[in-house]
């Protein structure tokens, strides 16, 4: 870490502590004393991320955990310790688990977070269990730094002769309060810290859990049914929910509308959007096609709207005329179409790694992100039939260009042709008897163009005579 005069020590290991080094010392000074010192750059962000990961990992012991400062974890084990056979057994289990992952830990269990902090860092053993009512006795001999005070305050207390928590606790409370009344922050005010450590001041633990679900609720005075009423309620729910999403910087991808029936049942409909949205008008339009699928029964007495999935979303940029960007318009169109016709009816072409035309380009749902359409230099027809249709082809000369095409019970005389373009079967995907394809672009005398192929060669040993198929129509 960089200090005012070159790099300084950010943190150190047990061996370095044994050598007498301390945090904040300049690396150049220290190197003259300990020439074989190993120095590595500090990565504070990565440390914090690791600690947050560790906090989530330690949720195995109890549901409420949080990273504490830069080097600690706080666990609220109330009601969880008996599952491990008491506090001592739980701490032993933790010690073992941390050791197994290569970490040395100092643990303490205490009635308050402040006391546990003090004992974990300043008690003699690596593991301390402090029962109810033992707090004062256990903390008495610890230094005042154990009260989570900043260095300046601790120094001041030391200069006043108050070196231990016990000594500080013995000072009349009024005197301490008067001395430190101008200090509002907990880490600068020993009175607050004392109260927190001894449980006189509540210090709730805010776990770093994911945010609460996004949800809007409307309880109704009278049971309602009917599309118009439900539409009004959905509008009201969206008006509640959308500002909440904006506050959190989220946009809904999937929403669930639930009606709670008076006769003791629920009915839900879902709406999905292809691009995260939190605009009430747009979402209400999507629900308009779904509401009739709700089963009202004798009416709903409450309705909820839940965000089942959301994406982070910045506030939407609009141009000067108040029109949003063109691609937003198109994705909204896709949402509206999908809401009425279903996701399988609204499609876009997507390229896949294949040479076979029907596999190279497939249609997927238009709202799905992913690769674009196929770009090929080869001539492809304008329209591809859903599946190749068998036809008969006659040659003028053996192995020459096709001369006559019989397809859909009609004979066409072919005047022009281009080909073949040979596409080999994909042996890694298909049976060994799959035959290759020779594609031709042909044109009949009326000027219609077809994309036909011959499956197989006359003597490829994979079946009888080659068959012909019409695969595409061209303009």
């Amino acid at each position, binding site marked *: 870490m960089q200090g005012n005069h070159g790099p300084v020590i950010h943190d150190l290991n047990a061996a370095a502590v044994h050598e007498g080094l301390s945090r904040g010392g300049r690396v150049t000074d220290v190197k003259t004393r300990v020439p074989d010192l190993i120095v590595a750059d500090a990565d504070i962000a990565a440390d914090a991320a690791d600690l947050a990961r560790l906090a989530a990992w330690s949720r195995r012991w109890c549901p409420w955990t949080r990273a504490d400062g830069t080097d600690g974890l706080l666990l609220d084990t109330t009601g969880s310790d008996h599952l491990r056979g008491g506090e001592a057994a739980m701490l032993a289990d933790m010690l073992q688990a941390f050791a197994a992952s290569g970490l040395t830990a100092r643990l303490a269990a205490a009635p308050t977070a402040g006391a546990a902090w003090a004992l974990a860092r300043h008690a003699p053993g690596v593991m301390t269990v402090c029962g109810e009512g033992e707090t004062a006795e256990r903390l008495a001999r610890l230094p005042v730094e154990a009260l989570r005070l900043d260095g300046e305050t601790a120094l001041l207390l030391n200069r006043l002769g108050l070196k231990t928590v016990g000594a500080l606790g013995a000072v009349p409370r009024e005197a301490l309060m008067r001395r430190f009344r101008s200090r509002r922050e907990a880490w600068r005010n020993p009175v607050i810290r004392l109260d927190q450590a001894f449980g006189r001041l509540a210090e709730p633990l805010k776990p770093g859990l994911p945010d609460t679900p996004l949800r809007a609720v409307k309880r109704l005075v009278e049971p309602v049914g009917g599309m118009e009423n439900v539409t009004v309620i959905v509008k009201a729910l969206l008006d509640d929910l959308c500002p909440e999403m904006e506050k959190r910087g989220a946009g809904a991808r999937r929403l669930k509308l639930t009606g709670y029936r008076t006769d003791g049942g629920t009915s839900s409909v879902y709406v999905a959007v292809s691009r995260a949205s939190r605009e009430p008008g747009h979402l209400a339009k999507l629900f308009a096609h779904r509401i009739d699928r709700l089963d009202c029964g004798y009416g709903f007495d409450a309705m909820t709207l839940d965000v089942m999935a959301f994406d982070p979303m910045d506030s939407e940029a609009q141009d000067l005329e108040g029109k949003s960007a063109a691609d937003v318009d*198109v994705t909204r*169109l896709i949402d509206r179409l999908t809401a009425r016709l279903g996701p399988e009816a609204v499609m*876009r*072409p997507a390229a896949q790694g294949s040479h076979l035309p029907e596999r190279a380009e497939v249609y997927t749902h238009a709202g799905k992100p992913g690769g674009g*359409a196929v770009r090929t230099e080869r001539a492809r027809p304008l329209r591809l*039939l859903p599946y190749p249709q068998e036809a008969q082809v006659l040659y003028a000369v053996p192995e020459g260009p096709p001369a006559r095409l019989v397809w859909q019970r009609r004979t066409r005389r072919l005047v022009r*042709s281009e080909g073949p373009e040979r596409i080999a079967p994909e042996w890694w995907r298909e049976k060994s008897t799959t035959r290759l394809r020779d594609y031709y672009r042909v044109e009949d005398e009326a*000027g219609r163009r077809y994309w036909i192929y011959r499956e197989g060669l006359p003597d490829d040993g994979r079946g009888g005579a080659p068959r012909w198929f019409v695969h595409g129509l*061209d303009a």
Partner: protein
Amino acid sequence: MKDARSKKPDLTLVSPFLRSGDTLERPEKAETGERAGTRAEGPDFPAGRAELTEIFASGGDAGAAGFALAQLPAGKPLLWVQDRLSALEAGRPHGGGLTRFGADPDRLILVCARDAGDVLWTMEEGLKCAALGGVIGEVWGAARALDFTASKRLALRAERTGIAVTLLRFSAPEDLSAARRRWRVMSLPSAPHPGDPKAPGAPRWRVELFRARDRTPGVWEAEYDGASHRLRLAAPLPDPALAPPQLRTAGG
């Protein structure tokens, strides 16, 4: 040269569909000129006119789709709606082929609708989205949902939002419609291929404009130039009444 049928939809009859913002004054006859088919110059059709165009073609003729794409602006988002039968019989648009006609397959939205009613709903929904460059709808055969009122709605909406809309009708009767231009399209033997005399070249179509509001109907031979995305209406054929009979029946 309008026939009696297409004259029927007079604007005074459909006034209930008019809204205050619509501009429905009849465009002035641009060029009365001579009767179509007698002069060697074809009209120029700028791509992407915001109006409803109807194109009739026989079932297996993909030329109509090519002609429709040639009249749309290139590279814009495109909404393509098919009813079930069109997709089954004539196939789906293929991305590799769309690029030859100036369309961008990455910006294509294909909708497979169940019936003509859904096709019309989807097209109208698409016309609410100003970002689209064009809307193509395909309806196979006669469809009860596609009546004069439905086409009128589409036509008015297209003019209001400024999006070119094309209805492709396969094997369909040419019944009443409010489309501003109605074409009959048929494939013709292609232009000579520059490299290979035996190979098919640039597509050519016989296009017949049989109803239009601002033009004299006529028959042309259209050739599409993919490189510049231009439709050339060249070497007009004789008047439809005088056209050789085998050309008219070859469509099947």
